[in-house]
């Protein structure tokens, strides 16, 4: 990390500013030189066969040290489905470009009518010879404007149960009929999109696994990702940022950290983060010894996302003192470090604003509690 993470990239991450596509790709490629980008893949498909614990250590370590978010859509979402349920042709066609960092992927699950109720997708695939004709649209598709490929859940068959009849299809974003409309988010940036499919022709060779079994594959994915969803490494970095913010003098004002209320607030966040980390480690060791961890693992995403929002809120409150004209981390040299007109989109405020989404995507907090309530009541 110290030697190879480009300085400008690290600086942007530490300041909470969004990266350009090439900065992500550059970093993915650097990690791939050691095989770390796909360390969690099995050896048989070119990975290092890391155990969940090894991967946990790796991810926490790099995020804590300012690594950009490893965009998961290709390497962590699409690839495991392809190498677990796909055929040899699909593995050969898609995995190398994911591993090398050359292909950018997007996740096409949500639709305007299918958010929390994901099974309600209405994007349709109709068979035409050896092709599928796809029509409909996906929304909230993160970085679809950078994507070469999108994996989508598509309704390929009518059925009584909404979960049945869905298929997992890989679509080339360059196909005729695919268009991408930007959605500007609350932080003033363009991360999200709506992707339209207007009679897009996709070869049957791009349907993964069995037709109509897409829901099961999508579920499989969610289960793989539960422990890492705690994002302890990123929270730890952000908590250190709060500590740095409250330690620095604010112009002629003394540091906030000199106020008991602030040291207490940070200590409380530290207590909660340690509890979250311990819970994740507890589950990892259970998993390591082959025990079934069950749905309780989804508490990690729930607790982690809510805690990360509180850490972001603490950072925000720490730069409050001249109204919210500021948005900068770590620069106390300017006359007024808080007044940086051109930068409001970035940094602390941007991270707080975009971070509001953490309790919405990947199963909202309400939905997670619904799921967990069943387990809790069954005890």
């Amino acid at each position: 990390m110290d030697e190879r993470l480009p300085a400008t990239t690290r600086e942007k991450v530490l300041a909470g500013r969004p990266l350009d596509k090439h900065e992500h790709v550059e970093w993915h490629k650097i990690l791939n030189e050691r095989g770390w980008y796909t360390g969690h893949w099995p050896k048989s498909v070119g990975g290092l066969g890391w155990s969940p614990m090894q991967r946990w250590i790796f991810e926490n370590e790099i995020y804590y040290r300012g690594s950009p978010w490893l965009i998961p859509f290709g390497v962590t979402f699409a690839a495991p489905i392809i190498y677990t349920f796909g055929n040899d042709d699909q593995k050969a066609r898609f995995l190398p470009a994911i591993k090398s960092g050359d292909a950018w992927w997007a996740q096409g699950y949500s639709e305007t009518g299918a958010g929390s109720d994901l099974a309600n997708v209405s994007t349709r695939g109709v068979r035409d010879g050896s092709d599928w004709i796809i029509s409909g649209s996906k929304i909230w598709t993160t970085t679809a404007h950078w994507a070469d490929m999108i994996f989508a859940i598509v309704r390929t068959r009518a059925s009584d149960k909404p979960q049945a009849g869905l298929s997992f299809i890989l679509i080339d974003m360059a196909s005729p009929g695919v268009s991408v409309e930007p959605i500007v988010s609350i932080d003033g940036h363009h991360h999200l999109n709506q992707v339209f499919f207007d009679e897009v022709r996709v070869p049957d060779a791009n349907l993964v696994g069995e037709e109509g079994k897409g829901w099961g594959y999508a579920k499989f994915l969610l289960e793989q990702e539960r422990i890492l969803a705690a994002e302890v490494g990123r929270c730890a970095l952000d908590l250190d940022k709060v500590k740095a913010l409250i330690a620095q003098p604010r112009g002629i004002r003394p540091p906030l950290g000199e106020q008991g209320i602030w040291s207490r607030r940070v200590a409380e966040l530290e207590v909660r983060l340690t509890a979250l980390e311990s819970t994740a480690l507890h589950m990892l060791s259970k998993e390591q010894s082959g025990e079934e961890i069950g749905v309780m693992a989804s508490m990690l995403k729930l607790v982690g996302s809510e805690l990360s929002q509180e850490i972001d809120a603490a950072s925000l409150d720490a730069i409050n003192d001249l109204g919210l004209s500021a948005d900068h981390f770590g620069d106390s040299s300017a006359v007024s470090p808080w007044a940086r007109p051109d930068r409001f989109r970035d940094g602390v405020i941007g991270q707080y604003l975009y971070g509001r989404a953490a309790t919405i995507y990947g199963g909202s907090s309400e939905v997670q509690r619904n799921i967990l309530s069943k387990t809790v009541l069954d005890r």
Partner: protein
Amino acid sequence: MSGLDESELRAFEESVSTFVTKGDAGKSSPREIWQSVADLGWSSLAISEASGGLESGTSAIAIVARNLGEALLETPFISTGVVASIVLDQAQGSVKDPEHIAALLEKVTTGDVVVGVAVEELFGDPAFVQLELGGSAEKPVLDGRSAFVIDAGIADHLLVPAKQADGTIAICLVSSDADGVTIDPASSSIDGRDVRAVTFEGCRDVRCLGAPCAAIENAGIALRLALSAEAIGIMAALNKMTGEYLKVRRQFGVPLARFQVLQHRLVDMALDEQQSIALVERACNVVDAGSDDAMRMVLISRSFTAKAVRRVAEDSVQLHGGVGMTDELAIGHYLKRALVIGAMLGGIDEDLRLLSEQPQRPWFGDTAPLERTLVQPNPATV
């Protein structure tokens, strides 16, 4: 302040509400809205009758602020219509040339003059005032940089405090196009409102309004109440939008409003709004009655409403799901304004700190029953 009576307030409420919702206020610039406000006579709510104003009390100020908040309208109401109006009005008694100030107030009333105000420094701890006033009493010179001057970008005059050689503070009025005044070209505030950093370099065109006095305290009270009322307006808008959204948005085959956890969330949001309304109404009454409990009630109001509006705005984003995260929907813009309201004047922590320094008062009656026992030192620790 004399204040309006109940029925006058209700009539006023109605006309303000009509103004923000029915007119084309939403499409106008802050300065154009301010001109319309002035044409309706509401630019002089905070100015005394003796100076030709309406002297209508904080309840009327709160009505305007709440309606502006609900419609998310930007206009120099709190800078010019509240703070500058009160400070200039009361300064007439302490300056050598009251006619000049009277003429300026007249222009404030007609909407021809907007005054940018360095609120953070004016109402914050004097130790942190950044500007310095040098030169002589006859020929003062202003230097330094003030980081948070609201409405400076559209202002004709600026109201800023400055530190003098002897360490005391002087309130200064400076023409915004005077030599030595540089207003940052862009606003730095996350809610997109006009807030500028202003640099003064050897600026000699300075009118000194004297030391901070009761006028500043009164302006601070009115400002805090205006912010609290604006927060109420924002909560009203958000609660309405979120409630309506949950009724029309369907998932799992039913409207989201069917889910009990979401119903409970809406209830909590409504409770925040209701308690804020009650608090601010009471605080305005206490202030307008001239009670010595005014500052305490005002600090309670601002800290409560600022916390409530942030919670309501964050919950509104959450309950809207993905669409709540878009720049296109108003929800996010209300959230940003809510954050700024809570961050101004040193934030909620500062309100609470000041509150803890207010003289203790019995909750009921003239004495507190536990007072004696509470002040008794514990013999074990002496």
